């Protein structure tokens, strides 16, 4: 299984499935003209906002996990000053 930065191997596929389903649903709602314009506009913009926040969250967590992994790999603030 491919290594993940978050230590959660199943999270990536779950996000992919959720995003594909969400995007398809949003497209269908727009195509079918469900609801009024304002509702669809809010739904669309909220979708962008939610997924960009999810992206930011995963990116920040991955960055922190990577930092922790680097430290665990032997990096220490008390390392020898020079070599």
């Amino acid at each position, binding site marked *: 299984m491919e290594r993940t930065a*978050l230590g959660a191997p199943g999270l*990536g596929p779950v*996000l992919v499935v959720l995003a594909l389903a969400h*995007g398809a649903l949003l497209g269908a709602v727009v195509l079918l003209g469900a609801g009024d314009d304002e509702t669809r506009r809010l739904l*669309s*913009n909220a979708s*962008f906002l939610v997924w960009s926040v*999810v992206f930011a969250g995963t*990116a920040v967590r991955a960055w922190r996990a990577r930092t922790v992994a680097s430290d665990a790999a*032997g990096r220490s603030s008390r390392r020898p000053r020079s070599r």
Partner: protein
Amino acid sequence: MTLGNVAWFWYQHLAALQPSPSLAEVGYLLTLLLLALCLLRGLVERSGHQGPALRPMLDALMVGVGLFAVWWVLGVQQVWGSGPDGAGHALLVAFPVLDVIVLTLALLNLQRGSPGPLRLMAAAMVPYTLADSGWALLALGDGYAPGTHPLDGAWVWAYGLLAASATRAWPGSPVPATRASWQTMAWPFLPALPGEHGQSHRSGQPPPLHHPPRRGSLPPGPTGAEPAGVVCRLGGDEFAVLLVGAAATGAGQAVAGMVAAARSPVTLGTGHAVVPHVSAGVTSAQPGDEGADVLVRADVAVYAAKGGGKNRFEVYDPSRHARVLASHRLQAELVHAADDGQLVLHYQPHLDLMTGRVLGCEALVRWDHPELGLLMPGDFVPDAERSSAIDALGSWVLSRACRQAATWDARHPGSDLEMSVNLSRGRCGAATWPTRCPACSPRAGWTPPGSCWR
């Protein structure tokens, strides 16, 4: 991306504004630029040892020109010819143009077999490019408003794929080298350990415990019917002993006895007596364990025994495992670090405190690891010293430091700067060191005024 969407949401629903150009567009453009940089980095890293980044850049340029021609005919041309004037016009064109650049880099990453995160990023760029280009075309007509076109779903797909890509470890995270090396040297006849009834859990075939090549059977076990285990030579002076059944319960004592017995002097055919040193690692296995995994655990224990002073045995400790794997991985990656341009030298000046004059400097090696960041010598030199990589590392440091000293000497004649270089103990006594550095040779025009090797 988040900045752009937050700003967009603010304009649309909270502030009731529609400025153009806006902070949202700045965020979206930054998203594309950052994506391009990430994908370009992936390309450069995948270029391996075949030279600098010029080749992937040229590839990207060629593919990009082709894709851009298609894109121009399909959409950008209409945007360019019919769009509004000024900044709005430039923005409408900028998005599909940047999209095609990012898509080009993404396709090249896919073609070069990039790992998980880049594949997902490349996949995300397909709906992203479609949505952006569609938006630019729609903006020419009646304008675009969210919720008016199914293309909105494509953006959601792209954002989701990008979020999924962030969950993946970044390139430079290969399967640990130890595992690969063990798999290549592991017994082919040990795909899995036998189950309770002597059957392999994986293959359903009984493990060929009786006549494998390059191995011998231990004396019969307590029952007298089956051998207590097998001995196999892994290579060189490394052996593996597999104890099964009742013999395995006393494995610790058995190995301790082997280590103790091995300390006895052995007389060779030449008449010389030698005292062999034995380091052993002990681990246990459960039915269904992969043979390769068991060997890795035993290897970890052997390393612990060697690190603890040799001539001893250690029982496998899981807490050591991660550290040993990381160490092996660094050793494997260090072999190519210099060729990949990941090693850098930092120079620490030596000053005369009375006059403030720079007397020389000390060359300090750093490893700009693509995944772990800037590593200090303490993080990788001990690993290098346990492998042959230390020789190449020392030569690289010496050569680079001397070249730098020659450059400074040419730029500031008569400065007589000293260059201090740290060499690994055990290898610095060799008289071959100076000859390995072309910059130190008289032909290079630089004679070290006062090299200081530590």
